[in-house]
C-alpha cells in the first residue's frame, strides 16, 4: 500500500512551492488585497507557462494530461501562498464541469484556453442566501436564453465564461435543473463586483437578460453533474485549505519562537504551546482526510462522495481554526492590516462558504455514510 504522493508528485509540489515563493510573495498578494488590481495577471500567466493551469486537462485539449493527484499538490501550494488568482473557479469548477459533461466542441473551445491562461471560467450556482439545492435555482432557461440573477459568483467580474445552473422544469425534482455554458463577453450579461470577505478572490453578481446560452450536458441532468463537480472541487479546495492551515500554523509557530515577553519566548508558555499543538492536530486530521479524498478523486472511486464531504469538513475546520489562532498567537499585531495574518483569516472564512457552508456538508456526509451502510 502507498497512501502517499509519489516522488514525482512531491517534486512537483516543491517546484510549485518554489515558483510561488518567488512570484507570489505576500507583497504581491497585497496588490490585489488593496484593490489595485482585480487579480494577479502576471502570476496567472506564469502559472499557465508552468503548466499548472492545465495539469489535470488531457493533452488532446492542451493540458499536461497528468491527473488529479498532481492538481492536489499544486492546490496545496496555491493555498499556502494565498494566491490572488481565479484558480479554484477556473480549474476546479469550470474545467471539471467541462471534463465531466462538455461536448467535444465545448472542450476543444474552452479547455485549451484555460490551460494557456487565456480564459477564466467560473460556476454560477448560488442565487443569494442558501446552500446548493435544486429548489434554490430560480434562474430560468427557455428557448436557448437565460433570465435571472446569480450571486455570489466567484471571480464573476473577471470571468470570460460561466457554467450556469438553470431551471428547465417545475416538477420539484432534481431533473428540473440543467446546465448551460455562457460566453460572458457576448452580451445579455450585466456584471457587478461585490465587496467580500476576501478581496484577493473576487465575488460578483451577474444578471442574465435574454442571454444566449448553450446546454452543457443533457437536459435535466444538471443536478447530477453539479453534485459531481462540487465533490471534486471539495477535495481540491480541501488541499488549498490544508496548505493555508499549514502556513498559518507555521506563522504562529515562528512568531511564538521570536517574540519575547516576560523575559522569555512566548512559545515557552504552555497556554501558547497548547494552542499551537491543537492547531497541529486539526491540520494533521485535515491533511489525512484530504489524502483519502485525493485517492478517491484520482481513482474515481465509489467512495468519492463520502471522502469529499469528510475532506471538506475537516479542511474547512482546520483552516478556520489555524487562521484564527494564528492571529491570537500574534496578539495585537495580528489584528493589524500590516501583518499578513488577516489574509489567511479572510481566505479561510471565505473558503468555508464557497461550495456551501459547513452545516450543509455535515448533512451531506451523514447522508452519504447512511447510503454506504445501506448498500
Amino acid at each position, binding site marked *: 500500500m502507498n497512501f502517499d504522493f509519489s516522488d514525482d508528485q512531491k517534486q512537483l509540489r516543491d517546484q510549485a512551492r518554489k515558483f510561488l515563493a518567488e512570484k507570489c510573495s505576500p507583497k504581491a498578494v497585497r496588490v490585489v488585497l488593496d484593490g489595485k488590481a482585480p487579480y494577479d495577471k502576471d502570476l496567472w500567466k506564469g502559472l499557465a507557462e508552468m503548466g499548472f493551469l492545465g495539469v489535470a486537462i488531457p493533452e488532446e485539449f492542451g493540458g499536461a494530461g497528468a491527473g488529479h493527484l498532481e492538481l492536489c499538490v499544486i492546490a496545496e501550494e496555491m493555498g499556502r501562498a494565498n494566491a490572488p488568482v481565479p484558480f479554484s473557479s477556473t480549474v476546479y469548477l469550470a474545467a471539471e464541469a467541462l471534463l465531466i459533461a462538455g461536448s467535444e466542441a465545448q472542450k476543444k473551445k474552452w479547455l485549451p484556453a484555460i490551460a494557456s491562461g487565456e480564459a477564466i471560467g467560473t460556476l454560477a450556482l448560488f442565487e443569494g442566501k442558501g446552500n446548493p439545492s435544486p429548489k434554490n435555482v430560480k434562474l430560468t432557461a427557455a428557448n436557448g436564453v437565460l433570465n435571472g440573477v446569480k450571486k455570489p459568483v466567484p471571480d464573476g467580474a473577471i470571468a470570460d465564461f460561466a457554467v450556469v445552473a438553470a431551471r428547465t422544469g417545475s416538477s420539484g425534482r432534481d431533473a428540473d435543473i440543467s446546465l448551460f455554458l455562457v460566453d460572458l463577453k457576448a452580451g445579455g450579461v450585466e456584471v457587478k463586483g461585490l465587496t467580500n470577505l476576501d478581496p484577493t478572490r473576487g465575488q460578483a453578481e451577474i444578471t442574465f437578460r435574454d442571454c444566449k446560452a448553450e446546454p452543457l450536458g443533457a437536459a435535466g441532468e444538471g443536478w447530477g453533474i453539479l453534485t459531481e463537480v462540487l465533490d471534486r472541487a471539495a477535495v481540491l479546495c480541501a488541499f488549498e485549505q490544508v496548505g493555508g492551515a499549514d502556513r498559518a500554523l507555521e506563522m504562529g*509557530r515562528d512568531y511564538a519562537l521570536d517574540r519575547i515577553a516576560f523575559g522569555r519566548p512566548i512559545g515557552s508558555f504552555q497556554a501558547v504551546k497548547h494552542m499551537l499543538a491543537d492547531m497541529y492536530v486539526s491540520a494533521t486530521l485535515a491533511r489525512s482526510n484530504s489524502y483519502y479524498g485525493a485517492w478517491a478523486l484520482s481513482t474515481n472511486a465509489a467512495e468519492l462522495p463520502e471522502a469529499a464531504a469528510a475532506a471538506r469538513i475537516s479542511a474547512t475546520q482546520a483552516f478556520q481554526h489555524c487562521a484564527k489562532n494564528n492571529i491570537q498567537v500574534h496578539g495585537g499585531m495580528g489584528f493589524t492590516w500590516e501583518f499578513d495574518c488577516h489574509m489567511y483569516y479572510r481566505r479561510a472564512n471565505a473558503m468555508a462558504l464557497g461550495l456551501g457552508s459547513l452545516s450543509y456538508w455535515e448533512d451531506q456526509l451523514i447522508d452519504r455514510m447512511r447510503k454506504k451502510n445501506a448498500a
Partner: protein
Amino acid sequence: MNFDDTPQEAEFRATARAWISANAPKQYEDELRKSSLGRTQLKNANILEVAKAWQKKKADAGWACLHWPKEYGGRGASPIERVIWQQEEGPFGKLSHMFIIGHGMCGPTMMAFAREEHKRKYLPPLASGENVWCQLFSEPAGGSDVAGLRTRAEKDGDEWIINGQKIWTSGAHYSDYGILLTRTDPTVPKHKGLTMFFLDMKSPGVEVRPIKQASGASDFNEVYFTNVRIPDHQRLGEVGDGWNVSLTTLMNERMSIGAGVATGFPELFEYCSSLMLDDGPAIEDRAVRSKLANWAVKASGLRYTSMRAISALSKGERPGPENSIGKLVAGAMIQDVATYALDLQGAAGVVSGPEDAEVAGRFQAMLLRAPGTRVEGGTDEIMRNVIAERVLGLPGDIRVDKDVPFNKIPTKGR
C-alpha cells in the same frame, strides 16, 4: 496512491488470515466485537484465561510479538507485517490488552538494556504470555513529573534494597515481573539520581493493593516495597542512568497506546442509526447529524493518519510525527461521545446496569472509564507539550528544579 498490498505483503496476509481462521477462539468473536472501552468482559469465561491461552497458541506457532527477534520469542517480522497481523487479528486483538505493557514497554526496555542471558531467559515467556509484566514508574509524588519519584534503592553488597511506593501500576495484581525505576542518589538533581531494575513480583516485601477506580473497576494498583532485595545483575543500564533508560520505555508506551485507539464513533453511529427520538429517527435530526459529522471526520482523520504511518513503514521509511495526535484526539473524543450518547437517552441515560440500560449500558460504562484515557500514558496536557516541543520545535518548559539536588526540592505547595 493505492491501498494494495505488495505481492509479499499479500502472501503474508493470506498466511496470517488462514492461521487465524483455523485457530482463533471464535466462540468469543461476537462478544469481543461488541466490547468497547470500559466493557471488555466475557459473560461465561475469564477473559484473562482466554487471553493467555490465545497468546500461548500464537507463540507456539510463531505469531507472538511478531517484530521481536526469533531468539527472544518473536518472529523477526517487519513493521508492516506486524500491522497486517493486527488488521487480520481484528477483534481477537482485544485479547492482547493485558500484555500491552509487557510487550510494548517492558520487552523493548529489556531488549535494549538487559544482559544476554536474561533476555534469553525472560523474553520468550513474556512473548508467549506465560509471564505477565508490569511497569513500576509512577508514584504518589510523581505522575506527569515521573523523575520526581522517591522510591529508594540502596546498595548492599551485590544487592539493592528497595523501599517505597508505586501507584497506577496497570495489571500489577496479575503480573509475574516488573520493571522498576528507583532513586539511588538523592543528593544530585532529580534526573541524574535514578536507576532502573527488573524484579520478580513475588519477591518478599512486595505488596500489591488494587485501587478502586472512579469507574468502580480495578485495573490499577498501588505497589509497596519494604526491604525488597534485587540482585545487581537485574539492573538495567548504568547506576544513575535510569532516566535515559525510562525514556526508551515511555516512547514505546506512547507509540503502542497511540496505535488504533478507540474513539467510540462506530458505536455512536450504529446507535444513532436505529435510535428513535420523540420527534423521529435520531439520524434525521439536524443537531444529531452535525455532531456525528464532526466526530466522523475526527475518527476518519485518525484512521488515515495511521494509514500514512503504515504506508511509510511499508516503504521501509520511519513514520513522521503525525501519530502523536492519536491518543490526544481519541481520549477526549470518546469522553464527549459517551456523554452525548447519554444525552440522547434523556432521563433514562442515568440507568447503567447492563440488564436495564440502553444498549446494555455500553455508553454508561464508556463514560465512567473515559476520564482514565485522558490521563494514562501521558495526560492530554503532557501530550500537547510533546507535540509542541518535539514536533513544532517550541522551547521546553523552564524547569525550576532542574539543577537542584533532589533532597533540596520543596515537597509542599503551601
